[in-house]
C-alpha cells in the first residue's frame, strides 16, 4: 500500500515523504530538535504538547522503545517528521518497535522527508503551524493548517498536568516539595525523589494557599508546554508563594517565576530544542552543555532579548534584587536567575536531561541541600 504523504507549512511550503505511524493527519506548531538521541524521551516530554516534532538526526527508532525511557505516561507530540524511520525491536533493551508504538499510540508520522530542507526553512522563517497529511488530502490540507490556532497565547499546561494531587517519594524522609505540575518530566521527578525529596504534584490551577497548606519546604515550578503569557493564573499563584517558601523553577517554571517577578517573556524565532547548547554560569564562569526545549524566553528588564554581559548583573524585580546567573552562549538569551532578597532560583534549560547531558544535575543537589539545611 502506498503511503505517500507530505508536510505542509502555513506559508505553503511542502515536503514530501512516506507516512508511517498512525494514519490520521496531524497539525500543530512545526518545530525541530537537534538532539541526536533520545527520540522516545522527546516525544513523551509534555513540553512538546501541541507540536509536530522534526528530528534533524536522520535515523530515528534505531533501538526501539522501552518503559524506562518514558518522560510521562504518553506521547505528547502531535506528529513526528523524520528522514529515515526505523521500526526494529531487536535491541536488547527494546520492548517494542518505534513505529509500531507510534501507530498503537495513534500518532501520525512521516519519513523520507528532506528534514534538513525543512529545518533550514524553519530557521530562516521561524517556527510555524503545519501538519502531516496523506497525499490524498492535498486539497484540504491548507485549510486544516489555517484552522489550527497559533502557539502564541496558547494555554496547554492545563491539558497535560494532573487533575488532582499526585504524590512521589512518599517513603522518602527528605524535604517536602510542592510542585505546580504544568507538565513535569519524569526525569525531574526522579532526580528529586532520588535525592530523598517527598514530592507532591499539584494541578496547575492550584492556589497559593493550597500549595502552602501542608507547609512544604519548597515550591517547585515545572516545565511544560505553551505560552507562559497565557498562564496568568499560575503566575498569580507563584506571586503568592514567592518570599514565603524557597522556589526552584525549570523551563516553563522559570518563565512563570520571571513573569511573577515582573519580567516579560517573548517568543523565540524557532526555539531552543536540542542537547548541545552551551550555557555559562556567570558566577563561576563555567560552561555547561545543556538540554533545551523551549519556544519562549525571558527578556531583560529593559526589554532586551540578548544579554551581552558576562557578569552576574543585578536586576530589580517586584520581589527585590535578582542576579542573572546563566546565559546562553548561542544567542545570549537569559538562562537562569537567582533571587537575592527572597529564596529562589530558576533555570531555562533542563538540568534533569532526559534526553541530554548530565552536566547540570548538580543543581538538584544544591536545591535539595539548601532546603534540607533550611528545614533543619
Amino acid at each position, binding site marked *: 500500500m502506498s503511503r505517500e504523504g507530505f508536510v505542509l507549512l502555513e506559508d505553503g511550503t511542502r*515536503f*514530501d*515523504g512516506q507516512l508511517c505511524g498512525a494514519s490520521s493527519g496531524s497539525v500543530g506548531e512545526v518545530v525541530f530538535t*537537534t*538532539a*541526536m*538521541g*533520545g527520540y522516545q*524521551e522527546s516525544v513523551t516530554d509534555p513540553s512538546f504538547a501541541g507540536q509536530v516534532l522534526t528530528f*534533524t*538526526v*536522520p*535515523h530515528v527508532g*534505531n*533501538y526501539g522503545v*522501552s518503559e*524506562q*525511557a518514558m518522560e510521562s505516561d504518553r506521547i505528547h507530540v502531535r506528529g513526528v517528521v523524520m*528522514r*529515515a524511520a*526505523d521500526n*526494529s525491536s*531487536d*535491541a*536488547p*533493551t527494546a520492548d517494542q518497535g518505534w513505529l509500531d508504538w507510534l501507530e498503537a499510540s495513534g500518532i501520525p508520522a512521516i519519513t*523520507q*522527508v*528532506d*528534514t*534538513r*530542507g525543512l*529545518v*533550514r526553512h524553519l*530557521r530562516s522563517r521561524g517556527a510555524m503551524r503545519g501538519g502531516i497529511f496523506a497525499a490524498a488530502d492535498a486539497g484540504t490540507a491548507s485549510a486544516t493548517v489555517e484552522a489550527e490556532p497559533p502557539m502564541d497565547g496558547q494555554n496547554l499546561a492545563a491539558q497535560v498536568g494532573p487533575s488532582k494531587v499526585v504524590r512521589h517519594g512518599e517513603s522518602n524522609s527528605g524535604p517536602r516539595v510542592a510542585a505546580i505540575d504544568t507538565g513535569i518530566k519524569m526525569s525531574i521527578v526522579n532526580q528529586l525523589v532520588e535525592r530523598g525529596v517527598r514530592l507532591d504534584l499539584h494541578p496547575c490551577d492550584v492556589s497559593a494557599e493550597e500549595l502552602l497548606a501542608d507547609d512544604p519546604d519548597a515550591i517547585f515550578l515545572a516545565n511544560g508546554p505553551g505560552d507562559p503569557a497565557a498562564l496568568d493564573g499560575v503566575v498569580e499563584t507563584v506571586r503568592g508563594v514567592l518570599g514565603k517558601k524557597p522556589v526552584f523553577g525549570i523551563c516553563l517554571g522559570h518563565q512563570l517565576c520571571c513573569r511573577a517577578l515582573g519580567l516579560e517573556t517573548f517568543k523565540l524565532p524557532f526555539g531552543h530544542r*536540542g*542537547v*548541545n*547548547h*552551551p550555557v*555559562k554560569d556567570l558566577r563561576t*564562569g*563555567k*560552561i555547561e*552543555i545543556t538540554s533545551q526545549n523551549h519556544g519562549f524566553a525571558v527578556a531583560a528588564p529593559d526589554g532586551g532579548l540578548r544579554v551581552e554581559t558576562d557578569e552576574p548583573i543585578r536586576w530589580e524585580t517586584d520581589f527585590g534584587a535578582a542576579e542573572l546567573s546563566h546565559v546562553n*552562549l*548561542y544567542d545570549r538569551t537569559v538562562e537562569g536567575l537567582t533571587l537575592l532578597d527572597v529564596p529562589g532560583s530558576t533555570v531555562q534549560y533542563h538540568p534533569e*536531561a*532526559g*534526553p*541530554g*547531558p*548530565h552536566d547540570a544535575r548538580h543543581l538538584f543537589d544544591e536545591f535539595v541541600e539548601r532546603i534540607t539545611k533550611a528545614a533543619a
Partner: protein
Amino acid sequence: MPRRDDIQKILVIGSGPIVIGQAAEFDYSGVQACKVLREEGYEIVLVNSNPATIMTDPEFADATYVEPLLPGPVAAVIEKERPYALLPTLGGQTALNLAKALAEDGTLERFGVELIGADYEAIDRAEDRERFAETMAAAGLKMPRSAIATTLDEAVAALEVIGLPAIIRPAFTLGGRGGGIARDEAEYRSIVERGIEASPIGQVLLDQSVLGWGEFELEVMRDREDNCVIVCSIENIDPMGVHTGDSLTVAPQQTLTDSLYQQLRDQALIVIRAVGVETGGSNVQFAVNPATEEILVIEMNPRVSRSSALASKATGFPIAKIAARLAVGYTLDEIPNDITQVTPASFEPTIDYVVVKWPRFAFEKFPGADPRLSTHMKSVGEVMAFGRTFQQAFAKAMRSRELDSHAKLDGLGVDDLIAALTPAGAERYDFMLEAFRQGATLEQVHEACFVDMWFLRQLQQLALEPDAPFAGERVYRSVDTCAAEFEARTPYFYSGWEQQAAGEVERGDNASVMILGAGPNRIGQGIEFDYCCVHAAMTVRDSGRDAVMVNCNPETVSTDYDTSDRLYFEPLTLEDVLAVAEVEKPEGVIVQFGGQTPLKLAEGLVEAGIKVLGTSVDAIDLAEDRGRFGGLLESLGYQAPPYAEAHSVEQALSVCDEVGFPLLVRPSYVLGGRAMEIVYSQGDLEDYLSRNVREDGRAIYLDRFLENAIEVDVDALCDGTSVWIGGIMQHVEEAGIHSGDSACVLPPHSLGPEMMEAIRQQSEGIAKGLGVVGLCNIQFAVYGAELFVIEANPRASRTVPFVSKAIGLPLAKLACRLMLGETIEDLELPRDPMGHDHVSVKEAVMPFDRFDGADALLGPEMRSTGEVMGVARDFPTAFAKAQAAAGAALPDGGTAFITVTDSDKAGAVAIAQTLHDLGFKIVATRGTREALERMGVPATELMKVGEGSPNVVDMIESGDVTLVVNTPTGSGARSDGWEIRRAAVARSVPCLTTLAGGLAAVRAIASARSGEAEVLSLQEIHRGLYSVEAEA
C-alpha cells in the same frame, strides 16, 4: 582567559614518517596548530623527519628542522633554539613518547622548557597501563580484568585471573603493534613473547577478552577552566576484537539509547579529568556489553589522534586547531566556531548526516603475512564518506576505496560467505553483502561476526536494493556542526540524495579550478600526492581563482576546509566528480597531482567536455603506452632497455628470449610496482605468470632488467616548450629495487659531469617530446657508462616534496602556475637549483614489523608506507640521519653479520673491511667468511639456519648482532635470508639487503664517529631562496 604572553617560542613535534597506525592525520593536526599559533603571534620551531608533509613547508614555522625524531637530535634543536614551551599532543604517539623521553632525561628541565597541552604526569597516567588502570579504579570506572607482565612466567601466572580468550598488548607502541588475541595457551605464550619484544619498555598488558562487545569512542576537549565538550561519538561497526583503525566506523553512534550514551559521556569526562589532561583533545574508548549495558573503559589517548582527525572531518569541528589555542591559554567560549562564526567552540556538534570510515588494506603487497584482523592494526589508509543516511554513506565509502582488485565472490555460496566472515578479514563486508544477496538471514550473519543487528538490517536492505538509498536527486549539503540550526559560513560539502533537491552551494561568480585528490593512502600512493594537491590549492587561490578540492581521505591536509575555497568530501569516481563539476562549472580540472586516482578519470572528464589543465590526456597516453613511448625514444635517439608487450601468457613466453633475461615483468597500469617482479629464467616467468596474470587481454610488460645499474630519478617542469630540471636523484640501492623503496641522494654522489649533462639533455628531450605542461618525472638507469631511459610519468611524482625541500623551491606550486598559463621564463628560476652546500637523502620506511610472515626484502614491488629525509653538509652524515629517522639507527659498534650472494662477495669485502677497521666484530656464513678471509678480513663463522643451533637466527634473536648485511641470491632461493631478515625486523636490527646500501651505511657509521651531527633548519639551508615562493 586570554592567550599566555609568558611564552614566546613554541616547539612543535611532528609524527615522522607515515607508518601503519600513524598517518597523514598528524600532518593535518600539526599544520592546523602551526597556523593558529603563528596567527597568535608565537614563534614556532618545528621538528619532523618527514619531508612529504605540509607542516615542514618552511612557511609554516620560523625554523623547520627535518631531523630524526629521537631524543638526541631534538635535544640539539632545543639547545639551539631555546623554545619556552613544547607542544607534544599534536604529533601522535611519536611526539608524546619523545616528549616523555626528553622530560625523563632532564633535557626539558635543563633548558627550562614547559610541556603545554598535557604535562608529564598526565601523559604518564594515560600511557602507563598500570597507572592508567589505577587511575580509572580510583575514579570508580571499570576496565577489563587485566594484569601486567614483563616475563612469560608472570604472564602465564596471570592467566588464572584473566582467562581465555585474552588480549595481549605491548606497552608504548603505536596502534597496538606486536599485540594480539589468544584463544589457547600456546597462542597466548607466543603473542606474549612477541609483545614483550615489541614494547620499548618490555611490558605487556594482558586483558580479559571483550570480543563481540560494542566498541565506542568519544572525542573530548577540555580547557584550563575545566570546561569539557564531546566533539563526536564514533561507533565501530566491527565489534571489539578488531582494532579501531581496521574497523569500519560510523559517526554519530547509532545503536545506544540516550541513557546509555549519556553514561559514556559522563565517563569520558571523568576519564579526561582523572588523567589530568589540562587542555586539548583526548580520545576515550569504551566497550559496551550489548545485553547487559555494562560499560568498560578500554583506553584513552591524551592527545590528538587518528580518531580526532576523523571526528574533525566528520563534524567540521577542528579539534587540533582548537587544541592549539587551548594550549596557549584560551578557553572554549573565547574561541569562535569557524563554521558558524557567530557561536563559540564551547558546544557539542550535532550532525544531520551519517559518516562512515572504511579502512584500506594492502595485504596483496605482503604475501605470507597473516591477513586476519585483530587488535594489531594492519590497514594502511582509510576513506570516509558522508550520506544523508547510513546506507548512502556506506555505499559511498565502499566505492571510495579504489581497490586494485575486488573480493572474489564467484562460486561462493551462502555457507562459504558466512564462513569467510570469521575471522574478520579485509573483505568481510564484500562477503557479507553477497551473503545477504544470496539470502543469508540476519541471525546467520550476526552469529558469525557479532555486528549489531541495526547495522546488519541496514546492510541487508542495501544488498537487496542497492539503488533504493539513491532514489531522488543528488544534492550538496553543508557540513555545519549544528544540523542547520545556524547558517554555515564555511563551504564544506557532501552529496546526499533527497526526494526534492535543494542544494546549498553558493558558488559566486569567481572562476574556479577543481583539484582532484589522491583518495585513500595506500602503498604506492601516499601523502606525497596530497602534499601536491594542497600546493595546487594554494596556487589556484593565489591566482585569484577559487580552489575547489574533491577528495575522500579524512587523514589529509587537502580535506581541511581551510585548504580550499570549497571542499567537496566525495568519492573520486567519474560519476561523483562529474556531479561536482556540474555544480562548480570549473574553468578546468587538475588531475596530475593526485597520483593515479585522478589520472584514471582524465579521459572521462575530457569526454564530458571538461578541460584538463596542463599536460593533455594524449600526452599521458603517450607516456603510458609502451609502443608510443618507445617510438618517441627512438625518434629522440635515446636508449631504453629491450622490452616487449604481451597480451597473453603464451605470447609472453614466446617473446621472453627476444628481450633477454633477467626480465622485469609487470601488468599494465599499476602504481607502486604492484605485482612487479624480476625473473631470471623461463621457469621463473611461467611461475610469475601463473600467479599474477589473468587472461583478460590486458598488457603484460616484459623489460630487460639491467642488473646492478644505478637508478636515477629526475623531477622536471615543462611549459610545453621549455624545460627546467628541479632535481636529479641518485638511488642508493641498485636498479631493481622499486624507486619508492630505495634511498636516494640529491645531488647525486657518484655521477660524473658528463653523465649529469646527458641526464639533463634527455630529460629535456622527453618532457618536450611528451608535451608536458606541469610536472614530469623521468627514471633512468646508468648501466656502466651508458644511459637508459626506464620510464616517464607526466604527473607529480612521489619525490616532489622531497626535491622541493632539498632545493628550497616548491615544485608543485611552480608546476601549477605553468598549468594556469605561465611559462618557465615567468617563474624566474635558478638554472641549477641543486648547486648548494648540503646533501639530502630520502629513505623509505617499511612496515615489515606489522606483517608477521612477510619477507623483509626490498624488490621491484613497492612496499614502503612512508619516507624520511636527512639533510647534512655531507653524504654520509645525511645518510646516517635518514637511517636514524627511518627507525634503523646505525650502530656505532658491536657485531656485524654479513652474508651475501656469490656475485656480491667481492663487493662485501669493502664493507667488512671498513666495519673491521671501525672495531666491529664480523660474523659470517661459510662462503662469505671464506671470501672475506681470502682478502684478509677476519670473521667468525656461523651456522646457517638448517645446520643446527646456535645459528645465525638464534644469534640475531638473542640480541647479539647490531647490524645485518644480507643480499639475496638473484635466482629465488630465499628461505634462509627470509629467516634472517624476519629476525632482524623483530629485533629492530638495521638490515641492509643491497651492497650499495651496505656501503653507504658503513660510510655513515664512520662519519658518525667524528661527533654528533649538527642540526640544520630548512630556513638556514635555503636562506634567501624564498623570493620565488613569495611571488607565487
